[in-house]
């Protein structure tokens, strides 16, 4: 374990130190009770039964029995308290950790999300955190108790008889080595079996997916054969696993009995001058059996510890990188946004000197609309990602109403800009919540937004209207319908600036008309920026900006640009019409 990992574990546990101390003390008490139980039996055997008396002085076997019951009941109650407290502590730790991680993910900037696949984040927050839960429940909750138990048993045995205890412990290294070997073999055979199982599962998953293909090419025979082969292979791969399990159980049984036999040999032959009372022999036999359980558990837990440390490191490798976090606290709060946008000699690269935008300058006056035109990779999408500060620029400045956007509070900046992406994200919540997006809006306001966005027909056709729960990622809706919902979001939130990445996907004519209506309505009153694919949109804007390789090569209105001889835009436009005429 790296030093750093230990520090990280300590950091996680620090807030819980009180519980840990209490739990440890309770663990000691419980274990003392556990150890006392066979000792009570020893007393009963040596001091009473062997002598043939029921009571000696004030104490009778009945009282010893009563003490035994008391220890059993109180011990178990305490045990219940500690185990429950430990697992709750574990739950608390992972609860906090999960919240921290989620918060980090939410507050991390877009570059972080670009380089970290969402699947990885998902695994971090779910299964990696789960590994830590297992670590707490299986290891932390038992570890203290087990260690205390082993130590206490060792002390007890040595106090009862040093020599015999010493001889008994000579057995332990042998046991440790053998079970380490078996565990290793067991891991290997299990891994192999798991691999075969994965093979079988991949085969099944593919066959399920490709069932139509199998049917129309009459390949049932071949696939059945493969299924049989893989199933039998898996069946066979389980064989060594069961052998190992059998051997492990048998070896534990052997060691227990070997321990008993050794004690007997020594006491019978009075080797090393050992001469014991019957009760002591009984107690030794019992303790030998008792000590195996915690030892086994600690050995089993090594794997859990390893898995947990890996997960802990993975999680903190994310959490420790504070530089990706966005600051939502500082910056100027925008009071009333007019909507003037200005790019002043903006240079931007996603990495290094690989400039995507090279000295871009343009102005959009409040209420004006512009269209960004250019080939894929010319920098259109990058420009809209810069306006709401998904990325920070390297050179130049971007101004909103004359204020550098770096000085504006992030939340306030983003709330003033409404972006619709090509494939808008629809949450698996109600249509209402999808439009509202956690903002407090009344049903009437939402219905109004639906109406304004011309999504009314679509929403009303849903069985539950705005209460309808969308399927995962809105999969049951078409691209056009998702865009309509995104427009409703804009109408509901009323940002001053509107950004649209027009869809290239096929949208049916009816939806397209509805979308066009919304676009017209919005661009009339808001500052609008379009990444345009349709000629109708382009012709309608106040200003067209033509991008080529990260530079603005032309800007102006449609009429200005189209009449420019040899202009890039006029060439595009003319080739379009000549194609139509063909």
């Amino acid at each position, binding site marked *: 374990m790296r030093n750093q990992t230990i520090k990280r574990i300590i950091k996680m546990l620090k807030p819980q130190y009180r519980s840990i101390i209490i739990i440890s003390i309770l663990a000691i008490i419980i274990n003392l009770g556990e150890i006392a*139980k066979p000792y009570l039996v020893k007393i009963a055997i040596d001091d009473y*039964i*062997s002598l043939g008396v029921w009571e000696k002085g004030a104490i009778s*076997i009945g009282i*010893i*029995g009563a003490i035994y*019951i008391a220890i*059993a*009941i109180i011990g178990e109650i305490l*045990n*219940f308290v500690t*185990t429950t407290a430990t*697992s*709750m502590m574990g*739950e608390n730790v992972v609860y906090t950790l999960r919240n921290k991680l*989620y*918060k980090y993910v939410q507050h991390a900037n*877009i570059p972080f*999300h670009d380089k970290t696949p969402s699947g990885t984040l*998902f695994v971090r927050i779910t299964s990696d955190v789960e590994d830590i839960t297992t670590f707490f429940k299986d290891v932390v909750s038992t570890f203290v108790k087990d260690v205390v138990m082993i130590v206490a048993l060792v002390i007890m045995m040595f106090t009862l008889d040093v020599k015999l205890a010493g001889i008994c412990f000579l057995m332990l290294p042998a046991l440790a080595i053998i079970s380490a070997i078996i565990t290793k073999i067991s891991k290997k055979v299990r891994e192999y079996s798991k691999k075969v199982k994965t093979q079988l599962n991949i085969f*099944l*998953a*593919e066959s399920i*997916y490709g069932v139509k*293909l*199998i049917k129309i*090419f009459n390949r049932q025979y*071949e696939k*059945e054969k493969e299924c049989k082969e893989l*199933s039998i292979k*898996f*069946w066979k791969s*389980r*064989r060594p696993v069961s052998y190992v399990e059998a*051997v492990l159980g048998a070896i534990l049984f052997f060691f227990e*009995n070997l321990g008993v*036999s050794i004690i007997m040999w020594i*006491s019978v032959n009075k080797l090393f001058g050992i001469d014991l009372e*019957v009760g002591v*022999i*009984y107690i030794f*036999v019992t303790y030998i059996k008792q000590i195996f359980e915690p030892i086994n558990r600690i050995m089993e837990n090594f794997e859990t510890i390893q898995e947990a440390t890996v997960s802990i490191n993975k999680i903190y490798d994310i959490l420790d990188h504070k530089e990706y976090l966005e600051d*939502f606290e500082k910056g100027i709060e925008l009071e009333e946004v007019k909507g003037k946008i200005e790019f002043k000699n903006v240079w931007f690269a996603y990495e290094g000197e690989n400039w995507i935008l090279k000295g871009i300058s343009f102005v959009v006056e409040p209420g004006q609309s512009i269209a960004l035109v250019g080939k*894929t990779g010319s920098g259109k999408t990058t420009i809209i990602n810069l306006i709401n500060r*998904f990325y920070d620029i390297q050179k130049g400045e971007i101004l909103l109403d004359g204020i550098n956007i770096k000085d504006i509070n992030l939340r306030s900046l*983003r*709330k003033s*800009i409404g972006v619709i992406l090509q494939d*808008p*994200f629809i*949450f*698996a919540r109600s249509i209402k919540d999808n439009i509202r*997006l*956690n903002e407090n809006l009344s049903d009437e306001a939402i219905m109004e937004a639906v109406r304004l966005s011309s999504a009314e027909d679509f929403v009303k056709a849903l069985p539950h209207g705005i209460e309808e729960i969308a399927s995962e990622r809105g999969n049951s809706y078409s691209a056009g319908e998702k865009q309509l919902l995104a427009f409703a*979001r804009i109408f509901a939130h009323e940002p001053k600036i509107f950004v649209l990445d027009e869809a290239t996907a096929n949208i049916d004519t009816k939806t397209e008309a509805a979308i066009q209506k919304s676009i017209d309505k919005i661009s009339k009153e808001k500052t609008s920026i379009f990444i345009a*694919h349709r000629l109708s949109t382009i012709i309608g804007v106040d200003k067209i900006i033509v991008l080529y390789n990260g530079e603005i090569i032309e800007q102006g209105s449609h009429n200005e640009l189209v009449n420019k001889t040899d202009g890039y835009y006029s060439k595009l436009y003319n*080739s*379009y019409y000549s*194609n*139509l005429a063909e």
Partner: protein
Amino acid sequence: MKKVLLDAIKKYKIQIILHAIFIGIHIYILTIPPKLIGNMIDLLYNLEENKQAILNITYQLLGICILFFVVRFSWKSLENYVVRGTEKDINIKLFQRFLKLKLQNIQNIKNGEIMSYFVKDVNEIRAAIYRIMTYGSRIIFTFIIAIYQMASGVNINLTIAVMLPIIVATYLVIKIKKYVETSFKKSQDKFTELSEYIQESTDSIRTTKAYACEGEQLKEFIRKNRIVRQSNNAVDVFSNLLSTCTKMCFGICYSISLIYGSKLVLDGKITIGELVAFNGYIGLFVNPVNWIPELIARVKRMQISYKRLDAIFDLEVEKINVKEHIKSDNLNGSIEIRNLTFSYPGSIDTALEDINIEIKVGQTLGIIGTIGSGKTTLMNLLTRLYTVPYGKILIDGKDINEIPIEVLRNNICYVTQDNFLFSTTLRDNISLFKEEYDDSEIKESTRKAVIYDDIQNMPNGLQTVIGEGGGDLSGGQKQRVAISRAFLKNSRILIFDDTFSALDNKTSEKLIDNIRELTQDKTCIIISNKVSDVKNSDNIIVLDESRIVEQGTHEELMEKNGIYYEFFEQQASREEENILA
């Protein structure tokens, strides 16, 4: 399903019986050490006389370890043989069944759901069989053998006194286990909910940021996370309660044996050694008592899985002969469809309405239409993936239902629109696991499908494994691999269902030329959204909302100035508009 299980029991009956016998011996062996230890303790009181006897007992003790090893090994192997063997049998039978199911019955079940039948339900049944076989017999034998040893070997009254708390423990454990199960189920559901929320959050991060609602997202997450913590805590409380109760009951057992047993010793009814042995016997009950509720819970879960699998086995299957070599009568290939109307089972909307088509051998039919107009449904009927009504589809003048399915499909090559490839070599993906084709045939088919050069450029050529280094194919390449199958199979009827969508114009033109050459004397159907793919067909039908709305050659349809013409216009303009993008 019942038959599958009964078959398994019949098949493994000898192993099952042997397993039970070995378990019995195993339990019996477990009762020997306490007895021997007890004997030794008694002998210790007269050490000098009994020295040799005690030593002999230790040899016995070690001797039974060897016996124990043999017995444990035997039943473990038998258990694995039977349990995993049954799992294997169910798996194979289920898979065979699945391959024969009618496509229309499984189409609405998600792939993940079908997968869970194999992974989850079969596993559930396996786990239950395992527990019934091993835990069940161990519980029964422990109660029989250990009680017998206690009562006959030590003292019957003491046995009764001790059994009371054990029975109470069993009862409590069964009761509490129910709460553990329900709370566990709940906590799993809550965790799934949280997982789904996380998945959505990580996927939607850009939208969340654009609307600056991170704070609200976080609040909701904390709420959900808190519920998860709560429900996990509930599980912990119940399962801790469970172990506390059993341990407490056993603690009481031991104290009874201490007090009452001591008295019996003092009264001379039993010896100290017997008392010690008796304590050892009590210990044998600890595991079985915990296994009982586990067994009950498993059997319950198995019932659910059993019912789910049973439902699959009850679904209608295709009448098809599954053989390695299908003796195939060659069809000629003329197709006639008469007044065909079709709707999906359970749906009132018709998927196809009043379809009339005739294709002669050597002709090519083009089908064009929007998504959901019924194109693929029609092809699924032609290949009898769906149940076809009688007298509606005729091949070579014979009703399609009269032709054995395997013969029909051997004579049709249907290249589907989803270009799914198995994660195996390209060669296997083209030959589809048939070994009868040689390399030159396969290469020739790839050449015809205009994928030959692409494959040559891959590091391992035809042996390239899909998905592994260099095996990432583009959509267009996948489509052409799928089309290679048609050139290889060389059947009488060929169907291409929207298989050119990801190809550039040049490639698709070349490909369509090759297809035309291949299908000169064959029957061919080309389905597409693109006018350019179908315009050279002998006959074109336009499908719209389940009906044939237009029919004729390209020129005839253009003159009609109808939907086909509209398609043509739209596509021409869309192609050009994209220049601006």
